[in-house]
């Protein structure tokens, strides 16, 4: 019998004997017992592949492998890929190609690729896609991962491109500064830090969308368990039991008090030693639920007499956003051409591969929380409020964050682990399961939208009306932002003289809908861009030309009355002209064959205001030189994979005039870095980037002043010496001889930047953003006319970045945004209680992505740093409408409900053909 014996195996060549139970997941044993946290856990169900390791050379999911199965086997993990700490070929290729963004899927990708490359050293694209098809990535869109795998010498150490010299960082195609740890497997995410003796915390959550509840005898339940447990409920919360990203709307309890408003809402936390906690059956926790009738849609929630989710908000309306200019009703009534549509979109899950995780502990009276996040200072202030602490008694150290896309802006486990640490004085750790993450955190707002757009006989858009209900779910979260952003942006980047747009955030008992890449704008863009195709077709004008004709230009006013400059949408549309013609030619040739596969092409555009809507959102950057010659950048912008650690450093380095490689990055950490705000609204490159530019320039000015040199001087940092030269003149500053300030710097600069905006009046008129970015995407796809499936073949994406800080990272943003837009268009539909895992909730795999051609446009913005504009959200917005327009071009199917699943597309094809529609 081979049972019971302690499993022996080799892990990365080292013999190992594991003491854990034979039925334990290998992923747990590797991470917990051996401390090999490079192997990541994303789902515990074999759906994401993040935990891929090699077992006798074959890729397996460590989460599905009992340790007994590894007995006598060779296990290889990501930690075994480097040799003596040196990254080898595959890891280098990932770095060179920018294949790691957040890095949470990277270990799984690297191991799956290693198995492939040993068998097939020069794989085809198809082989690479198939081999990596079992590892999900939510950031990259896979393009750069596949490119890296196809460009590698597995064992050799290859020469890496040199980092740019002084003054040459901005615009350089440089690898991420924080990339080495991601490809080495040494990056520390939320679940990777486990202090000795930490308690494990788990939450008791509601199985009902709406219910009253009361607890039974908790003390008796605790006594019946196998060891000491601590149970905390709302009654134990010392502060104000309400949080929310917008303080004036804060309404979400950390632990529900008497009733729950959504499925997955926490009502209690249980803490104890991990051995006890991890096998605890929370199903036996003494809580009794009295379910109430739930409000599932804004339609029912707005009906007269509907129960109030929050009694103080009448008709369940959280807020209404409005923009109005001109006389749209009259413009539409008298128009030559009018197009109308009604659309429905669904809940979309962020599906980052890292479920929420973190640990809290007390450090000399300060509550320290190290967790994944997009917004450390907001976390600090909100957690402090819930726990009744002054903000300065809470310190947030963001862990590496394995994707966020908006959802990790909101608090999740911070107040829960903070509460346990505060009550016990012990470290308290929490790691959400995949389903817990999906049940309890925010989603993209489902929208029901109607719109009318009118054009004159020459094809000029004359008026538009838009009305939308956005299901904001049980709590406010970012509902107000969505309701305000949508009317501002629903026009698209087009001139519309007469415009009325209204969006309501409506409470239901659905999941909390919050921020998700685009804040409601992607939903609205679907309506507007579909109607633009209607109008162009009606007018008999080429669809691209119709958009070009109506595109905003410098000096035009937006629907908010804001005069715009640095408007790059025309440039983006013009960049698509040749690809559009070529795509039309190819489609015509293909469709002449009259098979059941029809080629279609579609185009859609976007614009997006960077930063908060008409509200302050400053960033502050500190940079200094220490007496021992370190150039330290306090970079408080959380890098969730999008690249701010690299981009901010590039900008700052060039502003100073020193090589970016000399920068020593610190942070983010609320105790170490000034506030750079949240990583959202495509604001970090623009706002924190500008603060970095100003701080760098100030540091440079200080150095030049000390050396009495002019602007054109060259600065060199060598050891503890600064050498400043200008022509023949050369002066040196000995940093070690300067007096240091209270922060320990010999020379230091700190600068803040808050983009200038003007508030919106009651008609939504004003200047809500200082900087906008623009883009347009061309989709070529094939529709199977008999199965209703759509296969996107190519997307050409032209985006105006104002100034490209880092083309490698910019392309990565475009490719990743497109992947999310494609998922939203074709497969993603979150249904509470039905799709709370990554096999029922589908996101694109390697095999679903098209070829992506990025065209980076630089139309400088007058306000942005070095002319730069934001990009992160823009890239997702045009994808879904361009796909829908292409489906229609191919098949005639007009899709008005997302996602465009095969059965819906087939029904729409039938409807277009005059047959019966059933969906």
């Amino acid at each position: 019998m081979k049972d019971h014996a302690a499993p022996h195996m080799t892990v990365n060549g080292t013999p190992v004997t594991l003491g854990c139970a034979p039925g334990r997941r290998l992923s747990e044993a590797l991470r917990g017992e051996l401390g090999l946290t490079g192997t990541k856990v994303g789902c515990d169900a074999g759906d994401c592949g993040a935990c891929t390791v090699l077992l006798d050379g074959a890729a397996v999911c460590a989460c599905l492998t009992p340790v007994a199965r590894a007995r006598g086997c060779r296990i290889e993990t990501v930690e075994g890929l480097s040799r003596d700490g040196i990254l080898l070929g595959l890891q280098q290729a990932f770095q060179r190609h920018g294949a790691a963004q957040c890095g949470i899927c990277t270990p799984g990708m690297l191991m799956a690729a290693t198995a492939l490359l040993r068998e097939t050293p020069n794989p085809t694209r198809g082989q690479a896609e198939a081999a990596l098809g079992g590892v999900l990535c939510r950031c990259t869109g896979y393009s750069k991962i596949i490119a890296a795998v196809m460009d590698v010498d597995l064992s050799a150490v290859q020469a890496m491109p040199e980092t740019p010299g002084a003054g040459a960082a901005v615009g350089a195609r440089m690898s991420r500064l924080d990339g080495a740890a991601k490809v080495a497997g040494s990056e520390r995410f939320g679940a990777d830090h486990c202090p000795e003796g930490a308690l494990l915390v788990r939450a008791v959550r509601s199985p009902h969308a709406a219910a009253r509840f009361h607890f039974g005898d908790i003390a008796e339940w605790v006594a019946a368990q196998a060891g000491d447990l601590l149970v905390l409920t709302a009654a134990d919360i010392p502060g104000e039991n309400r949080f929310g990203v917008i303080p004036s709307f804060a309404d979400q309890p950390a632990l529900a008090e008497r009733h729950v408003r959504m499925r997955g809402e926490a009502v209690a936390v249980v803490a104890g030693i991990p051995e006890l906690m991890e096998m605890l059956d929370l199903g036996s926790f003494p809580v009794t639920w009295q379910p109430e009738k739930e409000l599932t849609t804004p339609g029912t929630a707005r009906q007269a007499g509907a129960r109030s989710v929050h009694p103080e908000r009448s008709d369940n309306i959280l807020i209404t956003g409005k923009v109005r200019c001109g006389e749209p009703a009259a413009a539409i009534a008298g128009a030559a051409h009018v197009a109308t549509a009604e659309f429905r979109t669904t809940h979309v899950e962020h599906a980052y591969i890292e479920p929420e995780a973190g640990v809290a502990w007390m450090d000399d009276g300060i509550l320290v929380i190290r967790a994944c996040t997009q917004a450390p200072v907001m976390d600090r202030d909100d957690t402090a409020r819930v726990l009744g602490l002054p903000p300065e008694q809470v310190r947030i150290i963001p862990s590496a964050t394995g994707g966020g896309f908006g959802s990790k802006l909101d608090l999740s486990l911070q107040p829960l682990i903070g509460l346990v640490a505060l009550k016990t004085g012990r470290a308290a750790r929490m790691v959400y399961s995949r389903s817990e993450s999906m049940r309890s955190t925010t989603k993209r707002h489902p929208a029901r939208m109607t719109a009318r757009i009118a054009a004159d006989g020459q094809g000029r858009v004359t008026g538009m009306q838009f009305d939308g209900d956005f299901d904001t779910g049980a709590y406010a979260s970012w509902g107000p932002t969505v309701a305000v952003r949508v009317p501002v942006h629903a026009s698209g980047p087009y001139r519309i003289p007469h415009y009325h747009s209204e969006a309501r955030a409506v409470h239901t008992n659905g999941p909390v809908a919050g921020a998700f890449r685009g804040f409601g704008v992607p939903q609205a863009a679907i309506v507007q861009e579909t109607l633009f195709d209607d109008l162009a077709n009606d007018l008999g004008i080429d669809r691209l030309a119709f958009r070009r004709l109506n595109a905003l230009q410098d000096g035009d006013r937006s629907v908010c009355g804001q005069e715009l400059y640095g408007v790059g949408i025309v440039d983006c549309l013009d960049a698509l002209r040749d690809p559009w013609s070529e795509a039309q030619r190819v489609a015509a040739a293909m469709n002449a064959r009259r098979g059941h596969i029809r080629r279609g092409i579609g185009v859609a555009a976007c614009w997006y205001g960077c930063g908060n809507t008409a509200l302050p959102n400053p960033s502050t950057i500190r940079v200094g030189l220490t007496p021992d010659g370190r150039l330290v950048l306090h970079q408080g912008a959380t890098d969730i994979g999008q690249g701010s650690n690299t981009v901010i450093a590039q900008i700052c380095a060039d502003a100073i005039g020193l090589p970016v490689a000399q920068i020593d990055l610190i942070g983010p950490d609320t105790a170490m870095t000034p506030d750079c705000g949240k990583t959202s609204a495509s604001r970090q490159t623009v706002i924190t980037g500008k603060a970095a530019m100003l701080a760098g320039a100030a540091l440079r000015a200080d150095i030049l002043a000390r050396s009495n040199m002019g602007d054109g001087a060259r600065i060199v940092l060598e050891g503890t010496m600064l050498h400043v030269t200008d022509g023949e003149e050369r002066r040196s500053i000995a940093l070690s001889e300067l007096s240091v300030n209270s922060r320990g710097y010999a020379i230091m600069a700190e600068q803040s930047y808050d983009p200038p905006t003007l508030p919106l009046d009651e008609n939504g008129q004003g200047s809500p953003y200082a900087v906008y970015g623009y883009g347009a995407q061309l989709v070529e796809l094939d529709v199977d006319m008999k199965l209703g499936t759509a296969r996107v073949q190519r997307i050409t994406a032209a985006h105006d970045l104002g100034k490209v800080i880092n083309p490698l990272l910019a392309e990565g943003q475009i490719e990743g945004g497109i992947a999310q837009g494609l998922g939203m268009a074709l497969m993603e539909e979150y249904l509470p209680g039905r799709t709370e895992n990554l096999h029922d909730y589908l996101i694109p795999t390697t095999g679903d992505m098209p070829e992506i051609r990025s065209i980076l446009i630089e139309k400088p913005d007058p306000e942005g740093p070095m002319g730069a504009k934001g990009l992160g959200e823009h890239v997702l917005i045009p994808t879904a409408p361009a796909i829908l327009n292409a489906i229609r071009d191919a098949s005639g199917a007009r899709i008005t409900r997302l996602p465009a699943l095969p059965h819906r597309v087939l029904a729409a094809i039938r409807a277009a053909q005059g047959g019966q529609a059933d969906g």
Partner: protein
Amino acid sequence: MSSYHRPDTLTDALGVLAETGAVVAAGCTDLFPATEYPELTGPILDITAIDTLRGITQTEDGWRIGATTTWSDLRVAALPAAFDMLKQAAVEVGSRQIQNAGTVAGNLCNASPAADGVPPLLALDAQVELIGASGARRLPLAEFLVDVRQTCRRPDELLTAVHVPARAGHGNSRFLKLGARKYLVISIAMVAVRVVVDDDTISDLALAVGSCSAVAVRLRDLERELIGRPVQELAGGVGVAQVAACLSPISDIRADASYRSEAAAELINRALAGIVGTP
């Protein structure tokens, strides 16, 4: 206290099963996703150390596929063209990681309506071999699978092998799976088709459809109708109604029922066209 048994002989395994009524574990690709705990709570009988249960052998009356043969084993096995559909299904099971761990027996015993292995094995007239305390028995796969997640395996029995009779090893075959994405996808519909053509006549035909009924099914009526016909007649394709009559699809998050029937018919036609050539 959990107990985890991993014997290396069938006799020991049957002893454990009789004694403990353990949950049988093979690839664990269904067992672990069913729990959020960090370990499988026992009693567990892990049958992957029993060497005789793994691998594919040619026997006097056909082929024997051992219970713990993985999908990756199948993918590279030397088998006649009649098994192509099984190999094509093997590379569509989950991902490479799943194919390296998941087993044929596990796929059958888990009895999902969307089990990728079932349609091709049905189209190969597969029989399952069950061994228990009271001896061994064989029964057709179609009988073994009773309903959604239900088989007629007795608690003291192990599914030890799948047998494909020699007569089913003829012809050419194809498997087609339709899902909303490329990899790691639960199918909306899938078909397995095996055709034997003699002198331009369809001498044998097997049509199986999965994900369109509680248990994947063979389309026996349609098969009977087509066997003996000239192969050219397949060019016209089978009708949706003929296929739908054999199915009982449900509407769920992946597709509605009527779509499933239509898609199944279309997939059958494409599989047939792929085998006999499009006219």
